[in-house]
């Protein structure tokens, strides 16, 4: 160890307990820190992220997709998207050691949302950070109602299939609506079983179909998805009368440090510079209005 350095850029070693194939390009990694003290102390807010450090290969930011109510382990949904994640998919298996540092970022303001209805809008991989809120709600009944709108290209690419199919069957105050752009075999089967919960098209189409049956005016809305999605979903949510100060979104940027040093995630103009890693990754609609370039 270095003399008086504090492992700021290294993190703590963690062992991969389990690897689950979610789709052909996404895997769910369950990890546990080697140091029990860290396991006990590690606490986070849904929406926060960690840096996933693979010795000799590189490091990337990834949002936590397990719930802070389920302690002792950490789940990360990783898509094979680039050089490092390709290595992770091919070489990080049960028992592998990686280094994790965090949690970083602000997370969702759950206290403010307590006992209100919440609308989660996920697109593709955007389901991962929102699953943290979903599980948190299942464990604590934090919201009065939870409406999940999950848009995905086809059933094959849908994440957390087992969990979502269970919730589709109906669970107390959790309501799940799915939208598929292409109807493949799995999607056809779901349509047969849960006709009212499945929409063909984009996630905005699903929101439109549910106009009138979801209390949008009183709800908080939280969204996550690919960069192109935000503009359309924000427009639809405003159209559905969600209050602008209740629209939250979590964003992605290149990050090399996670702690506001490396400068890659800086967005904004001369009146409003924001670090996605420090000021975000969760932003409100007001942030979007005052910070150019936050969403496209």
């Amino acid at each position, binding site marked *: *160890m270095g003399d008086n*350095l*504090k492992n700021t*850029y290294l993190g703590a070693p963690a062992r991969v307990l389990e690897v689950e194939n979610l789709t052909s390009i996404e895997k769910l990694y369950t990890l546990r820190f080697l140091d029990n003290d860290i396991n006990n102390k590690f606490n986070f807010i849904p929406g926060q992220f960690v840096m996933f450090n693979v010795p000799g290969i*590189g490091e990337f930011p990834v949002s936590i997709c397990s719930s802070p109510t389920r302690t002792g382990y950490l789940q990360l949904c990783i898509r094979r998207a680039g050089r*490092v994640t390709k290595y992770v998919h091919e070489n990080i298996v049960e028992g592998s050691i990686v280094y994790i540092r965090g949690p970083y970022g602000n997370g969702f303001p759950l206290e403010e949302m307590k006992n209100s209805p919440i609308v989660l809008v996920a697109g593709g991989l955007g389901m991962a950070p929102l699953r943290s809120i979903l599980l948190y709600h299942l464990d604590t009944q934090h919201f009065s109602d939870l409406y999940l709108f999950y848009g995905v290209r086809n059933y094959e690419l849908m994440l957390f299939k087992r969990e979502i199919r269970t919730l589709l069957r109906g669970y107390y105050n959790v309501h799940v609506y799915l939208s598929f752009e292409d109807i493949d075999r799995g999607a056809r089967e779901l349509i047969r079983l849960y006709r009212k919960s499945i929409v063909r098209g984009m996630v905005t189409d699903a929101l439109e179909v549910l106009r009138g049956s979801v209390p949008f005016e009183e709800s908080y809305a939280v969204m996550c998805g690919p960069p192109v999605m935000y503009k359309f979903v924000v427009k639809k949510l405003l159209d559905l009368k969600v209050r602008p100060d209740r629209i939250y979104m979590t964003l992605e*940027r290149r990050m*090399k*440090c996670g702690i506001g040093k*490396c400068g890659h995630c800086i967005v904004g103009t001369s009146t409003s510079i924001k670090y996605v890693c420090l000021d975000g990754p969760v932003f409100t609609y007001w942030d979007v209005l005052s910070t150019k370039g936050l969403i496209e």
Partner: protein
Amino acid sequence: MHYKKLPKEFLEEFINRLRKWGEVHAPQKKGKNTYFFSRLDDPSKVQIDYTRTVIPPTKKYVLRPVEPLMLFHGDRAEEHTLRTTKLVLFGVHACDINALKILDRVYLSEPRDPYYEIRRKNIVIIGISCMPDDYCFCKSMGTDYAMSGFDLFLHELRDGYLIRVGSPMGHEITWNISDILEEVSEEDIEYLKKFEKQRLSSFKRHVDISAMPDILDLAYNSRVWERYSERCLGCGNCTLVCPTCRCFETYDVWLSVNTSMRVRRYDSCFMVSHGLVAGGHNFRPTRLDRFRHRYYCKSYFDPIHGINCVGCGRCDEFCPAGIKHIEVLNEVIGEIYGR
């Protein structure tokens, strides 16, 4: 503030005595008109009237262009141990001192950057007054005078230097070398006043920053950005020489079959990869996006600390396409006024 005077004949002696607090680095000449900070072995080589160094001394000594962060042996990791030497930077200009304060804000805010912190703690800063040249616009940015951030600051007098003592370390130094120091006389104060008056009236470049952040923000779609970005080569020189640009990129290097090293190096927002994420999406895909981004980042008005640019003029002097930061700003501002 505590003031002392150093007679001119003791300048070399003063530099030699500074060695007690660390290795003295000072501006020296390379080639015809290029200055750089490096170790000063012969005090007579110091270029006390230098204009600006290529790489800002403050950035050079706290953030290395390339530095190892950690070593991996298989799964085991260890942090890179820093070999730090105590340094005395002699002859730092006010703009660079103010720039270091901006870097401090970034790197010493929690969680602190340990590599930066260790280097920073081992640096003694001796500032020196200067006359603006054709490129300086620090006065417009409010950074032409250092009120803090130094240990000692030297102001040129007719027959010596007025020393401002800015820290306990500065006091320690003046205390130890009190035999070559004098008290400041009335005449010295008069000279300082005259010098400052002349300095303030020598600036050739100005930009009005009071409403600049808003005007630039409103000019997001200005054609001026487009025109200049077409001239820009995208080389990143301006970010390299900027005393407040401090983006870094990390990468891994394999040293042997089971040993690797995580390294960081300077990065530039002019590089295509700066806004690129895995999967191929680029948040700043065009040169226009990147060009404008740098101007916005530099012109960001922090409600507490002010603007991120210190007006040192390096990006103007060293731009191979001859783009002048302040001209771009003035043109964008002018355009929106004229509309």
